[in-house]
């Protein structure tokens, strides 16, 4: 199998290189024959281009085979392969054997190349959307793919043979990765990272060929949204994994690898917003092109930073020798972007200028500004240790205190803009409109602030944690305003639909959403983000207690009363486990039993590895989070750490709402279909009555 895998990789490299070179040549030839530079007719170049497209499709098949070979080697315990020997073992659960594909450096790079080819496959199969633009995008994607496949063939081969005799068993998978979410988190994150290559390729291709109009944005809108969704879910699944497995009571540690995933998410979010200005008003073309270029480059830069060992990370694959490859690639990619931009910048002239500071456009502009400042802060914090070492000769740590202090105010400002942006009209907003749209949210904010202050959330009384309480108060207040604004938008629209159709409120809302999925899907996403902010703001009230608990002893935290009923030990094929059993009471009533575990993995490893299994009782109000930290060697008693984390569940609920909103935004509009039928069936002259309720259909939506 390793031979088959290596051969598949080589074949993929040849096919991808063919796609790049011959595809590029065909595009040049097509343009040249149009300009009568070459004598060969355009049809010849088109046929050549078609062979390149098919080679691109075939490269996907070759990479499928390579990925299959690695998974097969894991399932068949082929420890002659160094990668499998290092990341799997005989007793490993089959799901985690499958996850071995991305649990190490070489495998994760293979996953990257495989996903890139899968995206390329879809693009090449759907090339009829716009044949020439797709051909450009295909060639650019193959350029990226050549890098990754070459890296796999030379720099980080996943099928290299282990030296010496074949091992009887492998070293096994890192115990921390043996968790269901780790089967999902990396592929989703990679789908997000890699997916941004597609809008990047379209943007660069459109710029290279001086693509007229904004159709490339329509073509890539779904690609970008799906990619953004994958990245969002991937990031939060990683956060949930950290929360459930690492046992420190938090979900985000501002590690460079986490930062690397957040940076393209921030610029990608900015792109999704500002691209609307280009679609609607032909503005911000330069900005949008650079936003998507930056998003792509940040995915590569993040990988470079975390895999080259340039910055220290707790993630296992952070130290390796492939940094030079990424440095070279990022320089080439940036040079290509810059050169194309300089060559074609006259094609990116804005059709309109911003007319008012109080408009949807300016809110998008400020939203972009805040997202980019947040991205810069994260990048700056990630790179500062390197910079400090260069300037001062000593490394420093840039950890959570830095990011929390700098990014929380930025996040709150972003939350504020999330609320006001959709309430402003395009071009300019009248004073009357501002008054009408902002009264209710302002009242809601004032009422919430007063209610919270009266209810006891008074920062000036909270000497221990005054700043975080203040930030939470501001976050809750802003959240109330934003939610009111969103609800108001839905109700206002539903009222119009109700007037037009006579349907009840709920049906009117459903119809409203189906008529303009993009707009109302967007509002639902915003609502999800606000819910997540509420969950994050709850972090200001976290409590923690640690105690050695003998049988019958109790620990109080918040309204919870935990009683220890003893400690139990068990032995499994891969690990020995010890767990404390805790009965949980709330206000004197029995609630549940929690059993936090400490596992010692030994199967197939030279040394034992400890892993924490957190026991959690989650409600909408708070999470009771218990960790078995081990036993005191002197007393033999279990040490239990209990956390009470308010509103954490809101973060995961918020993510679910964001997913729902994105699906809605991706769905096609209902109105266009209905009205097209109506126009065809009822209005033979083509003079559709603009005054009819179906006036929306006159302007097609993306």
């Amino acid at each position, binding site marked *: 199998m390793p031979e088959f895998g290596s051969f598949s990789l080589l074949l993929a490299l040849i096919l991808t290189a063919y796609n790049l070179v011959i595809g590029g040549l065909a595009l040049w030839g097509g343009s040249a024959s149009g300009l009568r530079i070459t004598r060969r007719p355009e049809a010849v170049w088109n046929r050549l281009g078609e062979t390149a497209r098919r080679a691109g499709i075939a490269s996907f098949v070759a990479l499928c085979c390579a990925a299959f070979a690695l998974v097969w080697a894991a399932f068949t315990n082929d420890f002659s392969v160094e990668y499998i020997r290092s990341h799997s073992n005989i007793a490993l659960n089959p799901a985690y054997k499958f996850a071995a594909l991305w649990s190490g450096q070489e495998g994760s790079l293979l996953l990257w190349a495989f996903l890139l080819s899968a995206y390329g496959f879809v693009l090449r199969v759907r090339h009829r959307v716009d044949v020439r633009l797709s051909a450009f995008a295909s060639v650019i994607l193959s350029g990226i793919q050549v890098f990754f496949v070459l890296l796999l063939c030379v720099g980080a081969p996943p099928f290299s043979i282990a030296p010496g005799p074949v091992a009887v068993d492998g070293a096994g998978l890192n115990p921390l990765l043996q968790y269901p979410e780790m089967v999902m988190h990396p592929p989703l994150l990679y789908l997000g990272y890699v997916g941004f290559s597609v809008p990047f390729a379209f943007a660069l291709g459109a710029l290279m060929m001086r693509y007229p109009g904004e159709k490339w944005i329509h073509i890539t809108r779904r690609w970008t949204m799906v990619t953004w969704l994958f990245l969002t879910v991937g990031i939060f699944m990683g956060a949930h994994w950290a929360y459930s497995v*690492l*046992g*420190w*009571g938090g979900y985000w*540690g501002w590690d460079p690898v986490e930062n690397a995933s957040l940076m393209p998410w921030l610029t990608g979010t900015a792109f999704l917003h500002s691209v*609307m200005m280009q679609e*609607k008003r032909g503005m911000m073309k330069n900005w949008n092109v650079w936003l998507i270029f930056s998003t792509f480059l940040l995915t590569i830069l993040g990988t470079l930073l975390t895999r080259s060992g340039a910055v*220290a*990370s*707790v993630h296992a694959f952070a130290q390796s020798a492939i940094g030079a490859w990424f440095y070279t690639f990022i320089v080439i990619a940036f040079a290509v972007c810059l050169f194309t931009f300089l060559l074609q910048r006259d094609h990116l002239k804005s059709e309109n*200028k*911003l*007319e008012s*500071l109080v408009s949807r456009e300016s809110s998008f*502009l*400020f939203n972009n*500004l805040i997202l980019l*400042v947040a991205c*810069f*802060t994260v990048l*700056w*914090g990630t790179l*500062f240790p390197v910079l*400090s070492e260069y*300037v*001062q000769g*000593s*490394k*420093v*740590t*840039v*950890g*959570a*205190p*830095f990011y929390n*202090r*700098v990014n929380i105010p*930025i996040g709150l400002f972003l939350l504020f803009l999330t609320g006001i942006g959709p309430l402003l*009209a*395009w071009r300019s907003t009248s004073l009357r409109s501002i008054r009408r749209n902002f009264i209710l949210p302002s009242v809601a904010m004032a009422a919430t602030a007063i209610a919270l202050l009266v209810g006891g959330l008074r*920062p*000036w009384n909270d*000497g*221990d944690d*005054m*700043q975080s309480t*203040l930030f939470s108060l501001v976050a809750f207040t802003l959240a109330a305003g934003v939610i009111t604004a969103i609800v108001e938008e839905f109700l206002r629209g539903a009222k119009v639909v109700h007037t037009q159709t006579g349907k009840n409120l709920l049906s009117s809302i459903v119809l409203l959403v189906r008529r*303009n999925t993009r*707009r109302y899907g*967007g509002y639902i996403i915003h609502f999800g983000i606000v819910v997540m902010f509420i969950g994050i703001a709850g972090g200001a009230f976290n409590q923690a207690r640690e105690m050695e608990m003998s049988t019958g002893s109790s620990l109080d935290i918040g309204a919870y009363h935990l009683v220890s009923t003893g400690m139990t030990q068990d032995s499994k094929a891969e690990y020995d486990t010890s767990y404390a059993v805790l009965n949980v009471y709330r206000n004197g009533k029995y609630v549940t039993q929690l059993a936090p575990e*400490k596992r010692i993995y030994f199967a197939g490893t030279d040394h034992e590895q400890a892993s*924490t299994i957190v026991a959690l009782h989650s409600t909408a109000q708070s999470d009771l989070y218990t960790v078995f*930290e*081990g036993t005191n060697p002197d007393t033999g008693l279990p040490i239990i*750490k209990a956390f009470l984390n308010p509103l954490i569940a809101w973060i995961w609920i918020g993510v679910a709402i964001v997913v729902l909103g994105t699906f809605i935004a991706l769905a096609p509009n209902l109105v266009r279909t209905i009205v097209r039928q109506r126009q065809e069936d009822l209005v033979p002259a083509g003079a559709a009555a*603009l005054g009819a309720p179906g*006036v*929306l259909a006159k*302007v097609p*939506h993306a």
Partner: protein
Amino acid sequence: MRKLVQPWRGKQFWRGPVFWARTVQTALLCIVTVAMLGAGQSRFDHLGHELMCSCSCGQILLECNHVGCPDSARMIDELRAQVATGNSDTQIQQWFVTKYGATVLAAPMRGGFDNAAWIVPIAVFLLATVGTFVVVWLWKRRALSIAGAAPGFGGELPAGQDPQDAVLRERIRRETEY
């Protein structure tokens, strides 16, 4: 009897520079108060969250949860002892830096070049905000000057255009906005 002067009763006061100066003063005072009050955190907890565990786990000292971590218990005891001596936060941090190196601080806090870590993001934010305002203002001015020069703009419709069409266009624009 002489009437008491109540400047806030007059319309002039609300619009005048004194009102705005006092508003800004109050806002600044609030911000400074907030910042000062933040310093009143429980010192052990506060300092423990600004130091890293030195066992290379990359975790905050008070959040390090490794079984048998060789460093965190000792470092926590050292922190308790340092807080008990009555030394200032800076002195305690310096003590840890001397013993464990600069990476023991969870954020750059030694002064000098470390200040750049804090100043640069704020400077970028301020510059970007001011820059955006300036750009928007320039665009707006240019748009207005073009509008002033263009015939039929600003209420008048080009010749031959039906006013009803304009109303309908406006409606389409409004209804299709997202």
